[in-house]
């Protein structure tokens, strides 16, 4: 069996899904022995996945123009895109802001909070600009596999990666399919 390259990216999320990924513990070693190769991820601190990466895992919703670029790049460079966790799958907690106008929200967050003195909305180009609406990943690019859960259990992630490694399309059911 050949190597299977995995890259992951962390958009508008809490990193809980990556924690859950690491929570596979020794099973991660088992997957690596079976041919899993971890490429650009927040864990390895590499930003750009290699061309022709097999699996691209996306954590978090698409909330800023940076996220939009990142997930589009993942789509270009990866064969299979996995939306990992509720934010990537459904939009999740970050979509709470969708009901409040962007400007009002930034003003409340950076200027009018009771504890803020001389607040200012950051404008640095290094920081992504909020899109009008936070979106689930499948509203921006095509997604091949969905793993909901907040976060999905290590068992669910292990099951999905193992199935892909063994050349099958995983189908989450029962205890592995959770929205919370």
């Amino acid at each position, binding site marked *: 069996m050949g190597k299977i390259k995995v890259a992951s990216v962390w958009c508008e999320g809490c990193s809980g899904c990556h924690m859950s990924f690491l929570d596979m513990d020794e099973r991660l070693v088992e997957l690596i022995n079976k041919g899993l190769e971890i490429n650009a991820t927040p864990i390895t601190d590499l930003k750009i996945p290699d061309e022709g990466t097999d699996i691209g895992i996306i954590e978090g919703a698409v909330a800023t123009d940076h996220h939009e670029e990142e997930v589009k790049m993942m789509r270009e460079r990866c064969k299979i895109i996995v939306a990992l966790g509720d934010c990537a799958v459904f939009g999740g907690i970050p979509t709470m802001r969708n009901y409040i106008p962007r400007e009002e929200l930034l003003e409340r967050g950076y200027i009018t909070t009771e504890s803020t003195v001389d607040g200012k909305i950051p404008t640095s180009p290094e920081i992504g600009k909020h899109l009008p609406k936070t979106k*689930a990943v*499948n509203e921006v690019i095509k997604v091949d596999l969905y793993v909901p859960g907040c976060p999905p259990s290590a068992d669910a992630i292990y099951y999905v990666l193992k199935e892909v490694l063994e050349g099958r399309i995983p189908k989450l059911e029962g205890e592995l399919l959770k929205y919370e």
Partner: protein
Amino acid sequence: MENIKIKVNGNEVEVSPGKTVLQVLKDLGIHVPVLCHYEPLMPQGSCRLCVVEDRGVLKTACTTPVEPNMDIKTDTPNVINSRKLVLQLLFSERNHYCMYCEVTGECELQDLGYEFGLDHFEFPTYERRFPVDNTHDFIMMDHNRCVLCRRCVRVCSEVAGHFVLGEMERGIDTMIIADMDVPLGNSSCVSCGLCAQVCPTGAIIDKRSSYLGREVQSEIIYSNCDMCPVGCGMEIYKKQGANFIVKIYGDWNSDVSHGLLCKVGRYLSLYDEKDRVVGIKLKDDFGYRRLHEDNLIEIFKNKLNNAVAYVDGSLFNEEIEMIKEIFKDKVYSLYPNNSPIPTNINLSELDNKEFYVVINADLNREYGAVGSIVKRNVIGKKAKLMVIDKEFNSLAKIADYVFNIKDPNLAMDILKKQKEVVVIYKDITEEEKNLLSSLNNAKFLHLPKETNSIGLQKYDIKHEKVEAENVFIFGKNLEGIKDLPIQNSFVVVFTPYEDEVLRRADLIVGITNGFEREGSFYNLEGKKLKKEKVLKPDFDVLDLKSFLSTVLGKTEKVF
């Protein structure tokens, strides 16, 4: 009628006509997903999750009656895909993201998502923002969670008879509203809470029980409400391993209330905020001092000579029996408990009558379950209602006849002309009693003042005021002490609540109350009902039943 033959998934079955396809499939053990359907309510077939295929056509199983030559298929790709599409649309229309929601883990929509393996939303969601109505004391309505199944609307009218909830606009713009689109807290809602009980999602939730725990983490205890003499059946959800109640639901299988419960039983019984009497207090020259339980039995026995006992209707049968055993015939009730005209109709027969007469009771505020039965027949089935009351009665606005109690003759003329009338009355005078008794087309339902008034009647305990050296008083409502001739007596009071009149007592004993005690009582129909013990008392209080049996030497220890 003769049975008819239909085919279900290729197998021929014989079914009785008049059933719906859903009932037939259920009898056959075939699982059909439902969302808007709820057993005690009229089916309406709006969610379309129960669709089945009959000779190539999709039909809602819950509303389609069986007919000859049907060829029902429940698992064709057409059926499954249609159900999946409906579910995707339901999830996408409003905000059904589980992590925000109070009912996640026991939501019927979420369960359906898991059942169909729905792992993402296929359509754009979170497009619109809906209001959250938090104006009500006990119930919160979050329209973002609503799937428009209208269970709440149906239960509010068909079962509870209040006709408060309704809907406005059409299609995806439909909103569930109270009255003429006023906030729920300002509406004519009487807080029976049935809407929150039947809501399949987190759209209508009980504020107090929120985040206290799931049904799977609870122990369910079936009991009867002892807050009034109706005695509705309750499903009490007690958190496993903890000493608190998560929530109370009406028990659909109760043969008293058939699912009904009112504000008092569902909510107020959980919000008991009165000051409790803690411990045992004996009066001496310096005021009250705490007494140990062991000394209580001694004093109690010493004072039994030349003693009388007064009881109220909050006592259970077992307690009354033992008090009678101790005090023999020297037991009196604090309040009158007789029924002027004996009750000759029970609650199950109260439905589908043509003419109701309600005398001196505002059924929106008290005896809520009786009120629901009357209202669902008067508003929903166009039965006639006559209200006779000397004070304001909120039923008057739906009544056909409203009379002041001063002039009963005109009312009597109308009643005599009816085929059958049901008279539901609370307090009536001797004169009115004679007038009403003369009706030969009437059934009577007396609404006793206290929970176990009928029990006191059965044990033949009369309302009398007797002087004695030692006076023992047992009960919750102590108002009647003021009228007792106890100036020169040694007064012992067993009661759960602190009260002004307790200053008159020489010995005060705090007893268990509400969900801390168990026992049986007779409800207004004369049915013997059981109240279960659910909680351990939080205070240092004595259980009256155990204490009395210790005095009688039936059990060894008080606690």
